[in-house]
């Protein structure tokens, strides 16, 4: 734990590059022990990258880091830990060993780094020490319980306990509240306040503005890898923060087309997936592009998947053409005319080891087979070539394996396969994630073309500029529920962000 006198941490002129991307450009950051500091920015602003630099995960940055005006070197995680800088990442499961006990997980650093020449594990010491730490945090998790039996919130507590099991002057919490319920968040805040009392400096990354105003003393805003402002929380309000976060607009990226809207064909009533999303009411007309806005963790992906028959405990009605659909699996959904382009395209959308043609026809092989059995390779090839040409997929041929294509072109294949089938409702979940600007434009055009053909489009994204550019109407999701329905022509990015961060 830190000492009585506040210690200053400064990062000056930090830049870092990854192949092809300059992720951080001359960023400055300053905080003190005994305070909590909010770090905020839109997706891709560089918050997590900056904190990874501070915690030693990225050693190849340029710039200086000072603690109490003394220059320090942080090039690997051990450097950071030795200086008392600890981080709890958002994905708690990556840092925990599920089949070891809470105590062993808390004392993992000790077992790895501080055992020295000792070869025998002292179970007594491990459980005694971890119990001390948990007691101090006032957390009631038995140290002998297996981590695999814990809730997500408890796992987070275990990681915080591990962080403070060693010298901890600065504790970085990367979006700790995203998966937590309200009461769990309250519990976390209590611990943060206790840590502040213990002279720990807490750096808090979150997308939820109201909670930052509740828990933090200072705030740093970043945008596009650059430092924007460092202010005291008292001097700033939620609208100002939103203004700082917003970047320039990308309006001209979006095609301008007037699409004739038809009658309402798709409706979702009182829909809930039994886990993350609740009370969803959405309706969509022919040719309409409906946005699902919301920040990471708001439940967009869960909603998209549940609509595609993947939820385990769906309730409520999904109505297409006035008929109630029973969707028990994606197989049902496809048969009823619903298509989903999933977010994790490499994992869920495509077959990287198969050819472009195989990927494109996987959804509707029936169309390319004789007697619904034998494949018609000629027809498959022709159809694949047509799609490749229409979508401008950059590939040497239809037999090239997908792993040889760029991310944007892979995404076009993931979308293109659904053009082979006649779906009525197309659901897109973050279709532009990891796609370069040129390919983005092609994808937008593709979506417009689908709308022009009278399809319903549901477009989920956390990119505000896309919401403004492509949708006709949108529903803003916050914490699994629709916070607001907005007409795109009557709103702006600030308003969307306001509702997606829990504004009322």
């Amino acid at each position: 734990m830190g000492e009585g006198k506040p210690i200053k941490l400064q990062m000056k002129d930090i830049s870092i590059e990854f192949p092809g991307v300059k992720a951080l450009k001359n960023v400055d950051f300053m905080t003190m022990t005994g305070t909590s500091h909010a770090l905020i920015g839109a997706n891709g602003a560089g918050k997590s990258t900056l904190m990874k630099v501070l915690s030693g995960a990225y050693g190849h940055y340029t710039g200086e880091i000072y603690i109490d005006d003394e220059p320090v070197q942080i090039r690997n995680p051990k450097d950071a830990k030795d200086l008392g800088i600890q981080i709890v990442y958002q994905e708690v499961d990556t840092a925990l060993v599920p089949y070891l006990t809470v105590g062993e997980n808390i004392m993992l650093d000790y077992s790895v780094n501080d055992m020295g020449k000792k070869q025998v594990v002292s179970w007594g010491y491990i459980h005694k020490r971890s119990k001390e730490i948990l007691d101090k945090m006032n957390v009631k998790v038995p140290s002998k319980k297996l981590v695999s039996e814990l809730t997500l919130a408890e796992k987070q507590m275990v990681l915080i306990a591990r962080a403070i099991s060693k010298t901890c002057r600065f504790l970085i919490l990367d979006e700790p509240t995203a998966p937590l319920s309200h009461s769990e968040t309250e519990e976390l805040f209590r611990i943060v306040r206790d840590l502040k009392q213990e002279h720990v400096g807490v750096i808090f990354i979150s997308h939820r503005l109201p909670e930052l105003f509740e828990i933090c003393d200072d705030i740093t805003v970043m945008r596009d890898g650059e430092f924007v402002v460092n202010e005291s929380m008292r001097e700033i309000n939620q609208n100002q923060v939103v203004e700082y976060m917003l970047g320039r607009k990308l309006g001209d990226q979006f095609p301008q087309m007037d699409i004739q809207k038809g009658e309402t064909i798709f409706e979702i009533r009182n829909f809930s997936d039994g886990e993350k999303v609740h009370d969803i009411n959405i309706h969509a007309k022919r040719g309409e592009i409906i946005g699902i806005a919301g920040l990471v963790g708001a439940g967009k992906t869960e909603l998209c998947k549940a609509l595609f028959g993947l939820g385990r405990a769906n309730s409520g009605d999904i109505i297409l053409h006035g008929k109630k659909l029973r969707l028990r699996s994606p197989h049902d959904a496809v048969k009823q005319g619903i298509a989903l382009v999933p977010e994790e395209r490499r994992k869920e959308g495509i077959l990287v080891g198969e050819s472009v043609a195989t990927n494109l026809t996987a959804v509707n092989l029936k169309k390319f087979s004789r007697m619904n059995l034998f494949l018609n390779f000629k027809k498959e090839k022709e159809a694949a070539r047509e799609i490749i040409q229409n979508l401008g997929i950059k590939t040497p041929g239809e037999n090239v394996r997908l792993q040889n294509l760029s991310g944007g072109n892979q995404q076009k294949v993931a979308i293109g396969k659904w053009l082979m089938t006649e779906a009525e409702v197309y659901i897109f979940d973050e279709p532009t994630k990891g796609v370069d600007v040129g390919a983005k434009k092609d994808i937008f055009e593709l979506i417009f073309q689908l709308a022009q053909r009278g399809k319903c489009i549901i477009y989920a994204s956390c990119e505000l500029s896309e919401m403004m550019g492509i949708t006709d109407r949108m529903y803003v999701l916050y914490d699994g529920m629709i916070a607001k329905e907005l007409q795109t022509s009557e709103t702006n990015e600030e308003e969307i962000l306001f509702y997606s961060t829990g504004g009322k």
Partner: protein
Amino acid sequence: MNTAKTIQTSKAPKSFGFFDFLYKYGTLITIALLIIVFGVMSDSFLQPSNIINILRSISIVTIIAIGITISLSVGGFDLSVGSVASFANALVISMFVWHGQGVWMSIILTILICLTAGIINSFMIVKLKIQDMLLTLAMMFVFQGIAQTYTKGATLSQNMIMPDGSFSTGIISPMFAKIGQVPWIIIIMLVVVAIVHVFLTYTKHGRYMYVIGGNREAAKLSGIPVNKYRVAAYLLSAVFAAIGGIILGARVMTAEVNSGAPYLMDSVAAAYIGFAVLGAGKPNAIGTFVGAVLIGILQNGLVMLSVPYYAMDIVKGTVLAFALAITYYKAK
């Protein structure tokens, strides 16, 4: 086993270097080299009668390996095929010897009974979500035990001594014996390979299986009924194991304890060697056949060179390790 998946993530060959050439044609070159070496060292190796001998010797391995290939194609792995083949062998002989059934009745009943093995496997894997390899490993022992219990640990044959001291009266039909003899045994093998090749490569269902094996999540999200196809794969795997066991029975006209077990490793090896044949990069029927040929030639040649049978496993194991090395090195 996520073999297929591992291969998926392999990086694209930037240049068609020596290794890619080796990957594509390595198996065929090895076969050619073996033929030359054995041909030179032994006069009788290249005799037509010996070549037919080799094909006959690999037919059971090939048929069982085809079943494994199908289970691999959906990203699974069926280790229980050897035991199912033992069971089928015992069943089909017992149908004749104990129950006096005719040829068709015996074969059909045997296949139907062995199908329950596939049903149990697929139910446990698909519904209870047990990992394929672990479950089929467990079932390997279960089916082995069932086969032994069924025969009471005895070898079944014509005129065998029954537990009550009398001799069995059933006769194994001479027509059944034909199945285990040249040319029928070879023809059956080739037909099985051809049918499964057409099924996997030229039909919609085969394509779906590869899609499932390539990326189960993507397959599901493409609307493919993933579980139905996985069940089908394990059923087919059990059917081919049963056919293998029946032909084994026809060939030796008896049912020894665990007669199918030795075929497991050869079959697994054949299927894995088959991955790389002509650069397919995934389980495929032709490749599996080539893999079986490689093993058959190796075994036959080594016998001719008077390598003792007890040292044979060293060679076969090494070949399997080598085939896996090529597959996974490529997959890196």
